[in-house]
């Protein structure tokens, strides 16, 4: 799951892998499967080593008051999922945070892509807007979160706004750069073939910028979750952020880590969905770049 983005054929090593690759195509499938197995094995091993190490250290050396320990975190998770939390069912908290993050992600991503591409292609506008956008990007999100609560109230909208802002900037800068990096030849060719400005944008600039945009989307849902959590930290009556905040307030380090784990799992699931979408959209790529066909 979610290994697709952060993974690629080492183009440079293609020939180095020559021997392994010298067989036919069907063989490649088997090999790919085997390699996936190895990847999972190493991942699993890493997790096990880490958890065992943590458990031992926290039992014998460091202070679990700060660092908690895996068994304590596990039992906190079990507790949440079987008995619920201080604020009601854990599923409610997840649903609330997820809803905020999804809306924030959707709005922020769309706004970032659209504005990024438009400014990427409109020089004067971009120059005028540049200092304002950069200035806005430097506003600390936790300050923004309280401003949003003042502006939009304690409800969902203030958290959506915080999530949106984090996503927006992550996506915007990449979409902007992606729109700038478009091969000039392709644009010229399209214009000669009769493309209007809009068509150029739609058929040349957007597809060219796709890998830039996806590069940012991969981390953007994580940002959306962070935004929702930060918003909940600032004021809320439900949500994972509140849960973590409550754990902080009650010296429950296991609760802090458990909350972080839930957030993380959400991010990984979202990431997997995004990677699937990317794979479909970038099917045209040479296999080396999309890590798909060749070993």
């Amino acid at each position: 799951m979610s290994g697709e983005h952060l993974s690629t054929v080492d183009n440079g090593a293609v020939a180095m892998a020559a021997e392994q690759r010298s067989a036919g195509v069907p063989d490649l499938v088997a090999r790919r499967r085997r390699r996936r197995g190895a990847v999972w094995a190493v991942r699993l091993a890493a997790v096990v080593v880490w958890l065992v190490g943590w458990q031992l250290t926290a039992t014998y050396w460091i202070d679990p008051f700060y660092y908690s320990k895996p068994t304590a975190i596990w039992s906190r998770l079990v507790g949440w999922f079987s008995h619920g939390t201080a604020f009601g069912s854990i599923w409610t908290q997840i649903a609330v945070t997820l809803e905020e993050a999804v809306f924030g992600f959707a709005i922020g991503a769309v706004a970032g892509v659209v504005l990024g591409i438009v400014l990427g292609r409109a020089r004067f506008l971009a120059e005028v807007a540049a200092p304002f956008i950069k200035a806005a990007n430097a506003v600390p999100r936790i300050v923004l979160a309280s401003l949003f609560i003042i502006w939009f109230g304690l409800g969902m909208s203030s958290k959506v706004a915080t999530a949106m802002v984090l996503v927006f900037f992550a996506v915007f800068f990449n979409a902007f750069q992606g729109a700038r990096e478009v091969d000039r030849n392709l644009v010229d060719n399209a214009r000669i073939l009769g493309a209007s400005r809009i068509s150029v944008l739609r058929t040349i600039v957007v597809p060219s910028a796709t890998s830039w945009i996806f590069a940012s989307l991969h981390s953007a849902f994580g940002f959306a979750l962070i935004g929702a959590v930060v918003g909940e930290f600032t004021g809320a009556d439900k949500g994972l952020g509140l849960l973590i905040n409550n754990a902080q307030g009650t010296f429950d380090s296991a609760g802090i880590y458990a909350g972080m784990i839930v957030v993380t799992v959400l991010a990984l699931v979202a990431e997997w969905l995004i990677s699937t979408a990317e794979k479909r959209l970038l099917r045209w790529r040479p296999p080396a770049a999309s890590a798909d066909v060749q070993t």
Partner: protein
Amino acid sequence: ATGCRDSRDKAGAAGADNHVSIMVGGIDKVIYLPAKLTDQLGYFKQEGLDVKLLTEPAGAQAENVLISGDVQGVVGFYDHTIDLQTKHKCVESVVQMADVPGEVEMVASDKAGQIRSPKDFKGRKLGVTSPGSSTDFLTQYLASKQGLTAADYTTVKAGAGQTFIAAMENGGIDAGMTTDPTVAQLVSTGKGKVLLDMRTEQGTRAALGGLYPSSSLYMDCAYVKAHPQTVQKLANAMVRTLKWIHAHSAEQIAAKMPADYANGGKQLYVQSVKSTIGMFNSDGRMDAGAARNSLKVLGSFSPNVKGKQDTVDLSKTYTTQFVDKAS
């Protein structure tokens, strides 16, 4: 102090004798005003101490850095010492500046007709500064005294200051617990009304059936043991401040504080000081009954303390040894 560490052994040892760092749970909060005021009055210096005051807006972080030895003292609510004892951490209040919470249960003006006492909390959205904070516990206690359970109302984290006010103004919360200057601001603008005033002994007893010690300087037990002279000097300075507070008017006190503190409006700040200073005692001494009441209140809600009341040794959560000598 850098690097990961294990603080179990070294917590008390850190810090040279006359260098003290104190974390204030919101240095600009009026309920913690004696800390900054002592500094402003120069009393720490006069005791030969080099005190660094740090600030941190909400709750639990302060304890973490105290236990880890990054700071030697915390100015915060006494109830944390009880909470921490249940986590096997020894922290004790050495100067107890107030026996009342200094908190006020506010109600939005337009709901004041419907919410006249904690009885009316049912089905309401109640604001607290943060989950797990004293405002949270006191709110739960108030509600439970009326036979309400957590499911009967919604606890909303509303923060303090502008977020709290905005929440109250636009219906995010119906009522909520907070301190000055938020209270003063709400009252002066007419956005909120006082429902329960726990800034006075009388109001506190009425609301909680006893006192509830709040603003205190608490320190790691090991540190107190290892550096009695330093702690004594701190106690001397702070008790002196408490006495100074009692000898001066709110205007005079406000004038001693950094000008920035009145940036929200001089009038407002003076008003906040005026309505809060009543909570401070003049000797820094803990009232044993108040401590017991605190345990009782905590014991009915805090997930950490609930069911462990009997195992808590209150004598390890405060000492009057230093303030006795100071006064």
